[in-house]
């Protein structure tokens, strides 16, 4: 059964091919194709999940590329992590497909949109069932292309073009890290099959230092894909794409691929404490760093984007702190509630035609479904007890604490506070207070949009219960379950951590409440008291500008240097050579003066010199 798991990505691929080649005239009908095929994939994914749970892991492989004695293979493998990811991806994708039907209703290029979605879904599903690193890398890049195409969906907008380009290039920088890491690993292990890699690592076939290098290089790939500092800047810009895309790709699935990568290769990372620290510190720093930026953004999607960056940092931190289950767990819950938030945000944008939160407000009454589901999402991400985010975040904090990374633990708490604060800031500004919108008749979105949101809302509440300290750690047990490479770990944490996390969340919510709902505290506290800090944070720490001035201009300078070399050295040398040839010609031609005595003189002088030389070399002078 599991060897047929390749059927799961096949259906979205079919959807892509069908739509791109035949779908020109189908317009809205193409949405049914997309929804149908993704639906099948989802159903298959669920089946695979159950089969995996009952029968254990499995897969199939075939030769793909032979280089002499080396053989690279392609295939599928289903293990708990993959099966879980399959379900998450196909489910979110399925819901987003449905949601988009109405959201993209007016767009003339809806067919293209659906075909791109199909391409992305295919790549993402294929990524998660890769049995080896090369296949993973291939689809890793392909999901990037899907993301690129969808970010640049509104190709006529300069911003979309720039964002698409940026996304592609920044993730590619990360990908190169992955590529190098992969190749180095290959020459150490002799294979890119996960199992063989893990065996080799476990048996200590790879030297410690090299392993650290490889792990860090691979992690750079994850940094690029998951928008971790310092390669995070593309992700907020990627919000130029249609909102369902943001929900699917830039919240739930693709950006989590980095986390997935680290999780998949967890045995490799685990063997190198240094690499683990790098992962944890990068994650932790990103979590707090992005959260601070999220505090002051005015674009609803950008706030969510920074929140995504921050949450991904959280997951990385968990993995870096050996919290394998915690990371994956948070990946799952985050997928649901962040997708929910984005879809709800999309619903809001759909209604008010703006993304600026300053121009929203008071939507709670007008959008009776979007409002509540957004609130659910907000509560979940803020880590309010009983919502899914609470459990997964708690698990992460626990993991860091147990790993002895108290600094990171503190950072995590602060980030949680910030998260709660800015998410509720967002909620209050959008849904409460007076309407500041220019659109007077705000309507609730159609059912094809609300149903997916409701589904996700349910999941945002309940998905946390599969791994709790109260009802059992089902997820953890299953994930670690039959793996020979993953260490079993579960910590019964001290209760105070859970309490502290809850308190922090409530504190954040309370502060937001005071500022943005009650307005009992001044909003412009930061702007008026610390203008420099505000400017710094509002401009995302000027990292984009920093990159522009260093990397972009640097590359440009190198290029112009190259042009200079070409124009003034290479071409000049060429011109000099031709010049010499031509001037020899000119000289000879000038000597050819038409004076017959000159001709004779040349002949004679030539003769005289020759005779002289002959006698001279003959030794007679």
């Amino acid at each position, binding site marked *: 059964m599991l060897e047929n798991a390749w059927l799961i990505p096949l259906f979205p691929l079919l959807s892509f091919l069908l739509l791109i080649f035949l779908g020109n005239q189908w317009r809205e009908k193409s949405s049914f194709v997309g929804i149908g095929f993704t639906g099948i994939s989802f159903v298959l994914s669920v089946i695979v999940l159950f089969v995996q749970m009952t029968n254990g892991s499995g897969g199939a492989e075939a030769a793909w590329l032979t280089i002499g004695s080396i053989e690279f293979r392609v295939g599928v493998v289903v293990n708990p992590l993959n099966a879980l990811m399959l379900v998450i991806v196909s489910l979110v994708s399925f819901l987003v497909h449905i949601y988009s039907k109405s959201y993209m209703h007016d767009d003339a290029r809806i067919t293209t949109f659906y075909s791109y979605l199909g391409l992305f879904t295919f790549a993402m599903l294929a990524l998660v069932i890769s049995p080896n690193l090369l296949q993973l890398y291939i689809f890793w890049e392909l999901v990037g292309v899907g993301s690129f195409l969808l970010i640049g969906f509104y190709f006529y907008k300069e911003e979309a073009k720039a964002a698409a380009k940026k996304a592609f290039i920044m993730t590619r920088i990360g990908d190169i890290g992955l590529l190098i890491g992969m190749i180095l690993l290959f020459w150490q292990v002799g294979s890119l099959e996960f199992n063989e890699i893990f065996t080799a690592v476990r048996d200590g076939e790879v030297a410690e230092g090299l392993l650290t290098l490889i792990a860090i290089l691979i992690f750079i790939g994850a940094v690029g894909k998951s928008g971790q500092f310092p390669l995070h800047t593309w992700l907020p810009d990627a919000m130029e794409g249609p909102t369902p895309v943001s929900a699917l790709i830039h919240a739930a699935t693709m950006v989590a691929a980095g986390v997935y990568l680290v999780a998949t290769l967890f045995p490799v990372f685990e063997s190198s404490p240094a690499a683990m620290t790098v992962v944890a510190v990068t994650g932790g720093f990103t979590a707090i760093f992005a959260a601070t930026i999220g505090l002051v953004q005015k674009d609803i999607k950008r706030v969510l984007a920074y929140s995504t960056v921050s949450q991904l940092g959280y997951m990385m931190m968990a993995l870096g702190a050996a919290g394998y289950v915690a990371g994956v767990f948070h990946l799952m819950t985050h997928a649901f509630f962040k997708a929910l938030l984005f879809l709800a945000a999309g619903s809001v944008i759909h209604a008010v035609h703006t993304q600026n939160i300053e121009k929203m407000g008071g939507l709670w009454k007008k959008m009776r479904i979007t409002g509540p589901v957004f609130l659910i999402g907000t509560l979940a991400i803020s880590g309010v007890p009983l919502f899914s985010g609470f459990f997964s975040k708690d698990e992460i904090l626990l993991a860091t604490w147990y790993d002895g990374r108290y600094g990171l633990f503190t950072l995590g708490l602060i980030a949680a506070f910030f998260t709660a604060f800015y998410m509720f800031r967002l909620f209050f500004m959008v849904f409460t207070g007076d309407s500041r919108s220019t659109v007077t008749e705000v309507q609730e979105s159609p059912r094809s949009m609300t149903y997916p949101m409701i589904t996700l809302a349910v999941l945002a509440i309940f998905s946390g219960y599969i791994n709790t300290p109260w009802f059992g750690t089902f997820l953890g047990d299953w994930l670690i379950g039959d793996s020979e490479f993953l260490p079993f770990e579960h910590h019964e944490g001290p209760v105070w951590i859970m309490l502290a996390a809850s308190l922090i969340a409530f504190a954040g919510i309370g502060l937001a409440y005071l500022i943005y709902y009650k307005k009992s505290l001044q909003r412009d506290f930061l702007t008026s008291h610390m203008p420099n800090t505000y400017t710094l944070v509002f401009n995302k720490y000027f990292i984009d500008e920093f990159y522009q001035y260093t990397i972009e201009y640097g590359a440009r300078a190198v290029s112009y240097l190259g042009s200079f070399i070409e124009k003034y050295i290479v071409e000049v040398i060429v011109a000099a050579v031709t010049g010499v040839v031509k001037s020899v010609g000119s000289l000879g031609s000038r000597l050819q003066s038409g004076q017959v005595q000159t001709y004779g003189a040349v002949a004679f*002088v030539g003769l*005289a010199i020759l005779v002289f030389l002959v006698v001279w070399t003959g030794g*007679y002078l």
Partner: protein
Amino acid sequence: MSGELFAFLVLALLAILGGILMLNLTKVIHMLLSLVLTFLAIAGLYVMLSAEFVAIAQVLIYSGAVTIIMIFGIMLTRHNDEQKNQGNLTRNIIVGAGVVLFFITMYISINQVSFGDQATDLHVENTKQIGVELYSKYVIPFELMSVVLLVALVGAIILAKRDDEEEAEQK
């Protein structure tokens, strides 16, 4: 100083003198005549070298025929019989330098050579000897030479004759 050496020196000096005069005179006709001196001196040397027939041929052809046609040439072209300028000075200097170089080198080389023996019977029936050789061993080049002369004859005629008269005749 033997008589032979004396004769040689006189003739050689005359020959060279003629050449030098040719180089330095200004009137074309004078140059030509000075060369006649050279040609005659050379004929004298031929006699010394037991080549009577060649000497006579030299007198007839060079001092006679060639000089005369050259004078004809000068007369026919009758234009400025004076050497106007020395022309391209740079080139002349270069040629002069070349000549000097060539001369020195050759002089050194010539001095390396010495032969022991010399012919003794060349002057005996010189003309007959030449005739016999010419009509037996060198009959092929000799006959070929007649073609050369024919060609030169025809060539000289067709190149030098005035075509306009001929065309006038035809009309």
